[in-house]
């Protein structure tokens, strides 16, 4: 190496700065899925269906963006699905309780939103403190809190369903169902979160530190990075995004139960990995995560629209596509 002359150290060419073929793997998979969907069903590309798919992706999407930061810095959070259910439950109960005082109106909705974000922040802070201060493996911490949040919401609901007051619900409904310039609010919010996430990951210290910590936390520590605080912040950020996702989720069905958000954590983690973020940390790609989320919800949508296989086999198709998307990426990157 040392016999290479200095003249070789030129600025990287444009080609080197573009994402490599391997990085484009998930994008390719997404394009193929869209083409397949359009071929199989005429309504696939209709505004209604596109809106449905994007709006549905929004909850897991926002959570997955947060998850990208956690995983990039070498962590993991299994509790997000239960956390969403718990926050939804708390938010609905709080809004129902505040109703007699505040009446139906914007202040009540804003109070509900503040409570959801606050609950998300606290939940994330709890996970983060257990990981950083108590120094427990994130897998174990969040496996524990996953069970805790899930059983808390079941308890709050007395085993049943917590429903938002009908009048409040009617007022709150547009937050999921209507939008701006024909684009539904969840899609707009998801887009903002995704773009902000990408910028934070690529262009701020926080994103760079997440990658450094995930790559080698000792090096980060020796390089004057506040490792514990950055780690803590990734969990808090994720908690806030779960809160935000819940704000968009509650107006959809106006209820929360023990089965709300079931397996969201796995979908979010799968989306992150499909998108090209390393599960062991050290490298995060937010736009990849967004594509991963879209791939996951498109598979579902296409399977129902197209009657390709017995519904019993839907899980098989999903599994195969997920594994293929990752294999595509790995084999190309090693070539």
């Amino acid at each position, binding site marked *: *190496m*040392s*016999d*290479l*002359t*200095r003249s*070789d*150290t*030129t*600025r*990287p060419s444009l080609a*080197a*700065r573009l994402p490599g073929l391997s990085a484009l793997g998930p994008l390719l998979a997404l394009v193929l899925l869209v083409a397949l969907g359009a071929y199989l069903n005429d309504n696939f590309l209709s505004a209604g269906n596109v809106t449905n798919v994007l709006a549905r992706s929004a909850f897991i999407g926002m959570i997955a963006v947060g998850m990208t930061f956690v995983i990039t810095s070498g962590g993991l959070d299994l509790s997000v699905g239960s956390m969403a259910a718990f926050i939804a439950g708390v938010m609905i109960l709080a809004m129902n309780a505040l109703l007699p005082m505040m009446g139906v109106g914007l202040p009540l909705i804003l109070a509900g939103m503040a409570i959801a974000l606050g609950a998300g922040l606290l939940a994330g802070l709890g996970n983060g403190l257990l990981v950083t201060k108590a120094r427990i493996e994130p897998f174990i911490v969040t496996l524990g809190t996953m069970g805790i949040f899930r059983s808390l919401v079941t308890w709050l609901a007395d085993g049943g369903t917590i429903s938002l007051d009908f009048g409040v619900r009617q007022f709150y409904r547009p937050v999921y169902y209507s939008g701006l310039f024909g684009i539904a609010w969840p899609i707009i919010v998801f887009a903002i979160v995704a773009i902000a996430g990408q*910028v934070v990951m690529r*262009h*701020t*210290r926080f994103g*760079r*530190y997440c*990658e*450094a910590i995930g*790559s*080698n936390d*000792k*090096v*980060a*520590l*020796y*390089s*004057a*990075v*506040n490792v514990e605080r950055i780690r803590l912040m990734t969990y808090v950020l994720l908690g806030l995004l779960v809160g935000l996702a819940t704000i968009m989720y509650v107006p959809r069905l106006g209820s929360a139960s023990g089965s709300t958000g079931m397996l969201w954590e796995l979908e979010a983690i799968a989306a992150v990995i499909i998108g090209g973020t390393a599960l062991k940390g*050290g*490298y995060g790609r937010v736009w990849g995560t967004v594509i991963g989320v879209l791939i996951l919800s498109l598979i579902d949508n296409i399977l129902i629209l197209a009657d390709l296989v017995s519904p019993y086999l839907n899980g098989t198709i999903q599994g195969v596509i997920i594994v293929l998307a990752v294999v595509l990426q790995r084999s190309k990157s090693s070539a």
Partner: protein
Amino acid sequence: MLELVDVRKSFGPIEILHGIDFALHAGEVHALIGENGAGKSTIMKILGGFLAPTSGAVRLDGAPAPYTTGAQAEAAGVVVIHQEFNLAPDLTVTENIWLGRELGGLFLDHRAMRAGAQALLDQLDSPIRPEARIRDLPVSDRQMVEIAKALSRNARVLIMDEPSAVLTHREVEVLFRQIERLRAQGVALLYTSHRLEEITRLADRLTVLRDGAVVRRAGRGELTEDGMATAMVGRDLQDIYPPKRHHAGSVALEVRGFCVPPLVRDVSFTLRRGEVLGISGLVGSGRTELAEGLVGLRPATGEILRHGVPVVLGSVREAAAHGMAYLTEDRKEHGLLLDKNLTENLTLSTLARFGSPFIKAAREEEALTKAIGDFDIRAPRRDMKVGNLSGGNQQKLLLAKTMLGDPEVVIIDEPTRGIDVGTKSQIYAFIDALAAEGRSVVVISSDMPEILGLSDRVLVMRHGRLAGELEGARVTETDVVRLVMGTQETETETETGTPATGTPATGTPATGTPDTAATRASGSASHV
């Protein structure tokens, strides 16, 4: 016994070995020397079956070598001991030695394997317990385990890639005795090292590589160390140490009663501007712990005064805010992100200076261009992973990264470990320049000539305490060694590596145990 005939090797369009002829003979130690990047590693990989030559032949006992993988090579009796050990850290010594060739049928014969491991370790005069976990062993012991493992495979050819780089002086002695024993048993040995005095002592035959070609062959005693260095570098190396012309200024740092539990106790010293202060001592004497304690990487007690004002340094950030920086001895594990590129590594510890809230990429690139120029970092591509840089260039990058923070006090731990002689002299020049600029530099090193060549003043640590301080004309090797070993002990070795007369150097427990115990007690692998 094992030879290369006109071996060429190309990676892509670039040929990096240009027709190498090279032979290992039974019962001989053959030293292969050259600067980093001269092609030593490639040759060892080809010999060990890890790489296939592009053209030319590998011959074992006169016939084409019957292996194409490392595992097959081992089966054929050709064993490589890599610099990065090939041991499973969570398994025991016994389990590692027998890994892949476990004894017993359906169930493992633990007793036989343990006995076998014990026999091998006894043969090496090693006190390592067969049931110890690799993770808990110091680096030198791990090396012993590697050697035991090689022996257990009935190695006829043993290829050792810089085995002494991670060893302390005493451990090197043990290693040498083993090498001599293996030689006497008729094993063919290939030995590489950047420490030329080791080559002089060990090598029966010597091959010097430069830029992928053999530039010199010599038998025992035919080439002096200066001659070797000249052959390697291709030019005359004057003194690799810059002349000492420092003028110590005001006191920049004063440390009083400093303790880093559990090892370092009651250390006090002062450091002046424009001064290079050497810290010597055995591995495990608390040198690294002291440095890490000073910059807030370890909990510590005691007083630190900067320019006479007491400061509290609870973290690397606080230390940096007070103009203090520590450059780790372990650049791969603590210093650099090996799977990130040059830019991200360079700016990691000073990222706040490159824009907030958004990092300005152009400013980072500028900084890298400057660092490449200032520190002569040689990288084929700026966006390559740092892990693919040679050790010397990694060290230069780490130095550039540290200096980006513009620290007034720089503590450099093992500045030239595993680095070739050409790069060494560059790094010495950088260190000298830092002092000339009025900064204070602390150099921690196990390399005695380095300490003596660089330092204006030398502190010696032993068992976590300051054993003494030497200054100016009084700094001689003998003095330092006396302090390092402790004047009361009837120590049998000196730092020049020649066994002293008197007690046979058999590594008696009396001298061996305390250091080892101290190393373990401090509970970190970072300083072994």
